């Protein structure tokens, strides 16, 4: 790689004159940090950064919010990450359910939801379990702890997702993937290596300015060569073996299922649900919930945005009917959503 000899990561990016490259940052926190740090300004015009589907809020189907609202209306105390509160369901959000008298509490950790259940024995506490492999272990630990304590009033409403089959579904959407650092802190690097063997290139990226710029420089330098590759550019956190005890815990408590991703449709085996022996902490069973199907606003193009098939500003609702203050689609609600990032940071101008 003599042509990049001695260049800094920023110089590699600014001096790039090779083929055009589509780089997809899979992770929503990457999207957020890239905008917050103004990193797009460092990229040459041939490099297109696409914001992928790695924001759990954005890919959560409308019906899940409807289910959570149904629970709030049927006596449950909803505990949730703050990210989900303003996400629109078919007709309302958890914020509107709260205003209407529903009990909705924002927690930092699923373990805090267990603590709340312990201290409020007269309430039936449901934790909204969204998130990818990074977040699932925390939810599983919460379940195990609630069971160990014999709590009868704690359950999960699950919409968890996993990345392997999503990568397969996305493989043609980009030339290089920036892999989500914290997912692979749990699952390790084997999948990324296997993907490289199948022709899918990627760089595992961290979240500081230096880590992101370095990962992008590697993506550009290696991507220019056109040969499939994988580089772990976040080795201080991601070990090749990941966190085996976390993976074991996930497999003990949850099992794979087909899952609907907003915008991507149903991806086989890309979801997680509680195993049969954990039925007593499965909110859908505990509350004998009916089957609830949500309806997204038909004009919303979140789905195409999530696939990188269009930019947020191509959506007819963007900035008109849909703003962070009054969001129609989940991509505008989440601080990590591509639409929100474009709107708030002036993405079209960057």
């Amino acid at each position, binding site marked *: 790689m003599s042509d990049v000899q001695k260049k800094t990561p920023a110089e590699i990016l600014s001096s790039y004159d090779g083929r055009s490259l589509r780089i997809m940052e899979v992770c929503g926190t990457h999207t957020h940090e890239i905008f917050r740090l103004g990193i797009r300004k460092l990229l040459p015009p041939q490099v297109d950064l696409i914001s992928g589907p790695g924001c759990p809020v954005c890919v959560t189907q409308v019906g899940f919010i409807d289910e959570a609202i149904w629970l709030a209306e049927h006596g449950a105390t909803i505990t949730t990450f703050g990210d989900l509160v303003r996400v629109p369901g078919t007709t309302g959000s958890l914020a509107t359910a709260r205003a209407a008298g529903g009990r909705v509490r924002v927690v930092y950790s699923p373990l805090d939801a267990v603590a709340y259940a312990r201290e409020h024995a007269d309430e039936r506490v449901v934790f909204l379990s969204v998130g990818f492999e990074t977040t699932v272990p925390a939810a599983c630990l919460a379940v195990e702890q609630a069971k160990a304590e014999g709590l009868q009033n704690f359950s999960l409403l699950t919409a968890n997702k996993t990345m392997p089959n999503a990568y397969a579904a996305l493989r043609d959407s980009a030339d290089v993937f920036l892999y989500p650092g914290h997912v692979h802190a749990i699952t390790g690097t084997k999948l990324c290596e296997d993907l490289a063997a199948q022709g899918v290139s990627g760089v595992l990226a961290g979240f500081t300015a230096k880590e992101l710029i370095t990962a992008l420089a590697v993506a550009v330098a290696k991507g220019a060569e056109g040969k499939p590759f994988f580089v772990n550019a976040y080795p201080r956190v991601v070990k090749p073996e990941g966190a085996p005890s976390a993976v074991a815990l996930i497999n003990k408590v949850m099992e794979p299922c087909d899952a609907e991703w907003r915008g991507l449709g149903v991806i086989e085996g890309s979801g997680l649900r509680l195993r049969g022996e954990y039925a007593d902490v499965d909110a859908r069973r505990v509350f004998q919930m009916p089957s609830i199907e949500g309806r997204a606003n038909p004009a919303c193009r979140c789905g195409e945005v999530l696939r990188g098939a269009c930019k947020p500003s191509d959506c007819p609702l963007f900035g008109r009917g849909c703003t962070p203050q009054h969001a129609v689609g989940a991509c505008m609600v989440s601080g990590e959503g591509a639409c929100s990032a474009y709107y708030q940071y002036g993405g079209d101008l*960057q």
Partner: protein
Amino acid sequence: MSDKNSGHVTLAMGAGGKQTAELIERVFARRFDSPLLTADDAAVLDPPHGKMAMSTDGFIVSPAFFAGGNVGKLSICGTVNDLACMGARPLYLTCGFVIEEGYPLQKLEQIADSMATTAAEVGVTLVAGDTKVAGRGQVDGVFITTTGVGEVVEGVSPAGAKAAPGDAIIVTGDIGRHGCTILLERDDFGIEADVTSDCAPLWASVKAMLDVTHDIHVIRDATRGGVGTVLYEIAGQSNVGVRLDATVVPVDPAVGGVCRMLGLEPLYLACEGRLVVIAPRDVAPALVEALQACPYSVGAAIIGEVVDERPGWVVLNTEIGTQTLLPQPTGELLPRIC
């Protein structure tokens, strides 16, 4: 007053009779004592010289007591600071209380103590008050509304529409401490940090600036919504761009740590003792020096400038030398985790 009720506020104390008089005597009258505060129906006052500023604000904070203050101190600071932002020396205040039945009298006395201490420090006189008691559950503890009158220093007329390209932007200390303190006191997220509210009366700081120059374009106190919201308001009112240097905005390390933990932006955390000041660049260093000599603004710093480009927007110069927009305020602060 029966012994049984001596420790708590009762509905009878708000009924206007003897027990109301006893409540006022025990809690308020002796602390707010002044020749202007009488038992008559209204205060009769000398008018200010020149122009008069007037402002009113309601104060509800949960919890009512927090590190660095309480709702009483807040109710004085809030209105005093609103007057100060117009270049007005605070003269008179009125206060209206709505108190929940059952509220401990001892706490009410602490609140009144803080109000008296803060008012005395500023040199503002409490001239009238009102007390109502609401049934249990109808209010949460104590709600206070204060209304203030001040005398505008002659020749001074700061306003949100007066920011001009070339002006410097000053903040009078590290930001977001009040919002962070309240967030920690509520203990919703199990986080502990040594953070104290910035709640403070700022007339002395404003006075010190006016002694340097009367040519100050904007003074705003960054309360709800924090410094970021205030800057967006000013950018809109003045139709100018705001350019902030993200690396020099003063943030207490622990406030920064809490924000990183919860994915929050310190620029949107509330302050109750911080001003955003916009003034011509050439006087800004002298203003900062004057502010730093005042006890509640020792951390004053220039954090940015007013520009022509991108009117209505706040642009941040980032740690890596790029520029990005400060996301616009979205209302309720929600932690970002997953």
